[in-house]
C-alpha cells in the first residue's frame, strides 16, 4: 500500500511539473549572422556536445535552475540525472566537456553580450539587448 501511495504521489508530481513546463524558452546567440535559425535537434546537439554547421559555443544554467529544467524537458528530452551521467561519461572518457555554467539568467545575458559565438537559453519574455539574436523558440 505504501508503495502504491508513493507511486501515486510521484505520478501526480510529474503532472505538476508538466503544468509548470508551459512556459516558453528561447535560445539566444551572440552572432553576426542574424539569419541563423536552428532546429530542435541542432539545439540539442549544441548543448550535448554534438556538431552543428555553425561555430557556436553553448553556456548553460546550473542544474537546480528552473529555466534549465524547462530546457531539459522541452529541448533535450532527458532528465537532469541522465544529463549529469552523460557528461560524467564524456568527461572521463575524454570525449567532450559540458558547457560552461553561468549562475543566473542575468549573468547569461551578460556573458552572451561579452562573448562572440556564445549561445544560451533563457525564458521567453526576458528583455534582450539588440545585438543578441533569437535562434530558436519553443512554446
Amino acid at each position: 500500500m505504501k508503495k502504491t501511495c508513493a507511486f501515486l504521489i510521484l505520478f501526480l508530481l510529474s503532472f505538476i511539473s508538466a503544468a509548470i513546463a508551459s512556459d516558453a524558452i528561447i535560445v539566444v546567440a551572440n552572432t553576426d549572422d542574424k539569419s541563423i535559425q536552428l532546429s530542435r535537434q541542432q539545439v540539442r546537439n549544441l548543448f550535448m556536445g554534438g556538431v552543428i554547421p555553425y561555430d557556436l559555443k553553448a553556456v548553460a544554467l546550473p542544474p537546480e535552475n528552473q529555466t534549465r529544467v524547462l530546457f531539459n524537458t522541452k529541448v533535450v528530452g532527458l532528465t537532469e540525472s541522465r544529463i549529469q551521467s552523460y557528461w560524467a561519461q564524456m568527461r572521463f572518457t575524454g570525449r567532450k566537456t559540458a558547457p560552461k555554467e553561468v549562475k543566473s539568467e542575468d549573468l547569461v545575458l551578460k556573458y552572451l553580450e561579452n562573448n562572440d559565438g556564445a549561445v544560451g537559453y533563457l525564458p521567453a519574455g526576458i528583455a534582450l539587448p539588440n545585438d543578441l539574436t533569437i535562434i530558436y523558440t519553443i512554446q
Partner: protein
Amino acid sequence: MILILLGISPVASAADDKLQFSGFARLVLGHLDDKNAEYVGYDNSISLDQQSLLGLQADYHLSDSFSLTSQFVGYTEDQRNSGLQWLYLTYHPNNALQVKLGRQRIPFFNYSDSLDVGFAYPWLTLPQQFYDTAFFSTFDGILANYQFAINDWLINYEGYWGRFDDKIYLSTQEINTKVIGLVGINATVAYKNFSLRASYNQGDVNIEQDEAELFSQLLRQVGFTQSADWLNANGLIEFYQFSANYENLNYFVRSEIAKMVGEGGLVADIDSFYISAGYNFYPYTLYISYGKKDLHFDHLANEIPFGVSPELDVLAATYLGALAQFPDDKSAGTKIGLRWDVLSNLALKTEVTYVEANDEISNDYAVKDLGGFDGEAILYQLAIEWVF
C-alpha cells in the same frame, strides 16, 4: 581516503583553467545469499572491497587544440591493477575531429571505456554476463573520432589501432598476454532519442600457456597434429558488437549484443547480450535488466587411441584432462534496481541480481562454484556513486 578527497575537491575546482582536476568514486556494498558460490567477487559475507574504487583525472590544456590527459584508478578489488588507466595526448582542431595518442581504454562495447565510472550508467553493476567478456580494457595506440550531422542525424565514426601487452586475469590464474595489430572501428548513429552502435574489433593474440604449449609440441612429435593444433591459444580474435538504445524523459531501453570468435582452440567463442528497460521519475530511476552469456569451445574429439600402449593411454588421458580444463560456461543474470540522484553529482543505487548458471561453470568468470553450488544465487548491493 575518500574522506580526504572530499576535502580536496573544492580546491580542485578552483584550480587554474589550464590544469583541471576531476574524479569519480564508488563505494559498493555487496552480499551473496549463497555459501557455495561467488559472484563478481562477492561471497556470503558482506564486503565493501569488490567494486569500490577511486579515480582521479588531470587534464592539461597545452593550447586550443592540444591537451594532455591522465587518469589514475585505485581499485579495492585485487584482480585489477590499480594505476594509470589513461595517459594520452589529444589533438582536437574542431568540434568534429578528435585524435588521441597514448594509453587508452578499448572501445569494444558501449561502456568499455567508462566501466569504472558507475555514475555514468543506471545499473549498479554493469550487465556482467556481457561485460565479463572483454578481457583487457586498455591499449597503447592511436584513436580517432569524427562526428558529423546530416539533418537531424548525428553520425560518429571512431577507429583505433594499437597493442596490448599485460596480464589478464582469469580467476584461476594471471596470464601474460600480448595482442598486436589490435584494431577496431565503430559507428554510432543517433536520431532524436534513438541511437545505434556497431563495432568490429580484432587483434592477434599471444597468450602465455606454457603447459599447453609443451604438451602440444609433444603431441605434434607423436603425429597427433589435429590435437596439437587445437591446444593453441594463439591467433586472431574478433569481436563484433551491436547495440540499440532509446531514451526519453520517462523511460529508456538499452540493449547490446556481441560475438567473440577466437581462432585458437583454447580461445572460446562467446555470444552474449543484455536488454534493459528503465522508468525515470526524477530524481529516481527504476530499471530491470536481463543478460546472458554463452561461452563455448570447439571441442575436438580425441584422436589418440586408448588401449594400444600404456604410453598412448597416458597421452590420451592427459589430452582429455587438458580439454576438461576448458569447459563451456553459460550464465544469465536478471536484475532489478533503483538509482536515486541525491545531488547533481552524487547518486545512491540499490540492486538485486538473480544469477543462474545451471549447466557448466568454469570458475573463470563472474560466477564461481565453491563446491555444491546449485546454480542459483541472489546478489544484494548498495552503492554510492560520486563524481567531482
